[in-house]
């Protein structure tokens, strides 16, 4: 039996996402109408392009705007789904994909790559920075797991605590690297705040390879995720190998996050707010929550990126924008919800 809400929510969110992508592709220094965009997209499938359309438009859409738009979409979706997983597994609605220090690890890796480049390492920056960021994120995850694993069960408190400790050390490391970078510190600061400038199809491909399979794997575990919010004893007695499933899902969500972060830099709040908002609207059941969070995460980050790209006089780093817009909205909704609950 499929709940009617599943049939309403997912198609509507997909529709909104498609419309947002087309609108966003039309916006920018050169404004292109939605009809023209559809014709350009169809021309990629082999249809002939009408001659009324400017010959530079296909290049603008296909090689400049779409890779950036799709990167933002996939990073938004990936972070939002990881947020769902971290919140369920750590039994804490305030957890997000960065709780275990993955962001700090990636930031440290990226900073290290940037400082090495400054000090004369001759390697392509576009390749070496994401690679270092990803390695940093994975290494951090490994250290956090090792730190909290004597209990063998990876209890949520020991995981969160290990995450905080490792993050703190890495933050100090990042500060030290910034100090070393001296006058060229801007490159590091800019990376840390996240951006989709100059994303290419290879970034999109990498994101597709990671975020989509990870999301599907997570979705397959939707009932386990629901049950694990009740604690280990409860989930063990329902036949879940809690320690194994928890580790498996944390690794999947973390790898997905690590790829997102290494492509875009650190974008906060999406992984916290999107699952939270969706949960307020749809309830906590992960079967509906995971796909809807993915789609809403896509839409939200694309909107944010389009705002910085099109509407602001200078490009504001997207991480700053998501926090500046998302934070207050979140406060308002959270407060409203608390009041309602308090009155009831």
């Amino acid at each position: 039996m499929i709940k009617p809400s599943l049939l309403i929510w997912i198609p509507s969110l997909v529709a909104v996402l498609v419309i947002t992508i087309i609108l966003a592709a039309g916006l920018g220094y050169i404004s292109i109408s939605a009809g023209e965009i559809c014709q350009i997209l169809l021309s990629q499938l082999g249809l002939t392009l009408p001659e009324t359309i400017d010959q530079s438009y296909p290049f603008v859409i296909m090689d400049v705007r779409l890779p950036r738009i799709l990167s933002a979409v996939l990073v938004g979706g990936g972070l939002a789904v990881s947020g769902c997983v971290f919140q369920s597994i750590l039994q804490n609605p305030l957890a997000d994909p960065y709780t275990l220090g993955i962001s700090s690890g990636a930031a440290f890796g990226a900073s290290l790559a940037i400082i090495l480049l400054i000090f004369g390492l001759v390697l392509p920056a576009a390749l070496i920075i994401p690679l270092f960021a990803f390695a940093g994120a994975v290494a951090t995850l490994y250290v956090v797991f090792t730190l909290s694993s004597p209990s063998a069960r990876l209890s949520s408190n020991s995981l969160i605590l290990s995450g905080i400790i490792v993050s703190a050390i890495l933050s100090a490391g990042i500060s030290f690297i910034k100090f070393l970078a001296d006058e060229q510190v801007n490159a590091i600061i800019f990376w840390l705040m996240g951006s989709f400038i100059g994303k290419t199809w290879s970034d999109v491909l990498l994101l597709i390879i990671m975020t989509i399979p990870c999301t599907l794997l997570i979705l397959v575990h939707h009932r386990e995720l629901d049950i694990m919010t009740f604690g280990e004893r409860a989930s063990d007695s329902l036949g879940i190998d809690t320690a194994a499933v928890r580790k498996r899902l944390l690794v999947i969500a973390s790898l997905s996050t690590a790829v997102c972060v290494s492509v875009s830099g650190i974008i906060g709040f999406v992984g916290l707010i999107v699952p939270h908002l969706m949960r307020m609207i749809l309830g906590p059941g992960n079967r509906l929550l995971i796909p809807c969070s993915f789609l809403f995460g896509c839409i939200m980050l694309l909107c944010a990126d389009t705002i910085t790209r099109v509407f602001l006089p200078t490009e504001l780093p997207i991480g700053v924008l998501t926090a500046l817009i998302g934070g207050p909205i979140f406060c308002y909704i959270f407060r409203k919800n608390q009041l309602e609950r308090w009155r009831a």
Partner: protein
Amino acid sequence: MTENTKGLRAEKIHFSYGDIACLDDLSVELKAGRFYGLIGPNGSGKSTFLDIISGFISPQKGIVYCNGVKLQHYLPAELALILTTVPQSFYLNFDYTVHDVVMMGRHPHIPRFASPKEKDFTCVEEAIELLGISHLATRRVMQLSGGEKQRVMVARALAQDTEMILLDEVTSNLDINHSISIMKTMLRLVKNEGRTVIAALHDLNMAAAFCEDLIVLEQGNIKQFGPVCEVISEGLISQLYGVDTHLTRDPDGKRHIQFIYR
């Protein structure tokens, strides 16, 4: 599998937290189809004993057999079709509805890519009805009182439809009427359907009134084990808890424990 291997058997169980032995060389055989009460002072090892026989933790020494098969030979999902535990404490951080929570009890019965079937819904409704929480079915669990949450967790275990049910102090948060009602339900499941219930209790009167056999734990080992009327005595309670009591007996043989407060 023969009838007499049904049930749980623990052999020379040893479990310690660091240097402190929690259970020491404990052996016991719990037959299928009976209602066992597990009593003993705080720290006597009741919860650890339940954790071990439910497979949640493994003993450092000794073996537990469930229906004649070593506990560690079961896959978690297989064991969940035979045995369930209602833990003493659980987390509630997300606002599921009561019905959703009880439906989670059907998890071991539902294949990964399937949805709940007719039978699952029937089981859930029966469990909700048995626990007297039908009026709460569409409510959100975080808005419920402690006792109501406790009953939801018991309903979830019943929806799991297992032959053995382990209860860890489930009546501790409940009003007396709900405690009695849960104990009566459990006794009925034992009598009518031949299920096995093992309940850790600290209310001695509750244990004396509903359980058939008592396992008395003291300092990690079994002090006494047998039918309620043979186990409960003024001397035992005084030894265990250092409290004076006065025992009375019903016409039908039930023991009542009166505590003498001095």
